[in-house]
């Protein structure tokens, strides 16, 4: 039973292949879904920054100033902006996933509304976060 995958490919009928992913324009729920994965992987890489920040704070003022200097540079701010957006996106879409896992909002209309909400919400909250950060600076 488990050995069906081991059947030699030569014995399979030569059927035409169906068009694959790149042929279609992805619908919003599909884009929202793959973005969740991409932001998740990006945030995993971002944990390096989080760990660096904490370790530098424990090391001393000089090491901490280096981190602050890097994060305050134009490239650092750009990375932080992306990090912030990915955090908001993954958090909001994660809540959407938890609602789905509980059996809610699974109708097509709700799935589209949720997708718009998560995209708009994550962009909006990122801008609010940066305005708040610069206002308090």
């Amino acid at each position, binding site marked *: 039973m488990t050995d069906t995958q081991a059947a030699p490919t030569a014995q399979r009928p030569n059927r035409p292949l169906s068009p694959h992913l790149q042929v279609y324009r992805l619908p919003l729920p599909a884009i929202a879904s793959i973005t969740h994965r991409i932001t998740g992987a990006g945030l*995993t890489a971002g944990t390096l920054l989080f760990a660096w920040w904490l370790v530098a704070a424990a090391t001393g*003022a000089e090491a901490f*100033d280096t981190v602050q200097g890097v994060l305050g540079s134009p490239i650092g701010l750009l990375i932080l902006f992306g990090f912030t957006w990915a955090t908001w996106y993954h958090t909001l879409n994660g809540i959407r996933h938890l609602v789905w896992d509980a059996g809610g909002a699974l109708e097509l209309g709700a799935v589209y509304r949720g997708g718009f909400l998560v995209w708009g919400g994550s962009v909006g909250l990122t801008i609010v*976060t940066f305005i708040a950060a610069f206002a308090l600076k």
Partner: protein
Amino acid sequence: MAANQSDVGFRSSLGRVRGLGSARTGAEHWVSYRLLSAAYVPLLLWFIIAVVGLTGADHATVTAWIAKPLNAVLLLLLIGVTFHHAAYGMQEIYEDYIHGKLAKTAVIGLTRGACLVLAVASAFSVLKIAFAG
């Protein structure tokens, strides 16, 4: 799967499927990941608001903030949930896209190891600041 072809005739049906199916912990793992994710949301909101408040703060201000008992405890919880979530979230991605058993096992193991090292280093930093200043 090619490796299975040679031993089709020599291994019992049970021997061939062992380790490939449910290990009877799937649902438990799934539920605990969701519960931790739900707990992650308020922790993360707390951290974002705190970090916004610390924008541009110098070393003394930041370490004084980390050293406060409530902040240190919440940071330790945040570190634990973050690296657990990262390791297992990455595992789900690997399981979907990497098909070689050796490569998949290696990458999952390396990611878990890296997450563990980062988590311990982060937690140690918080504790050092809290106890040793």
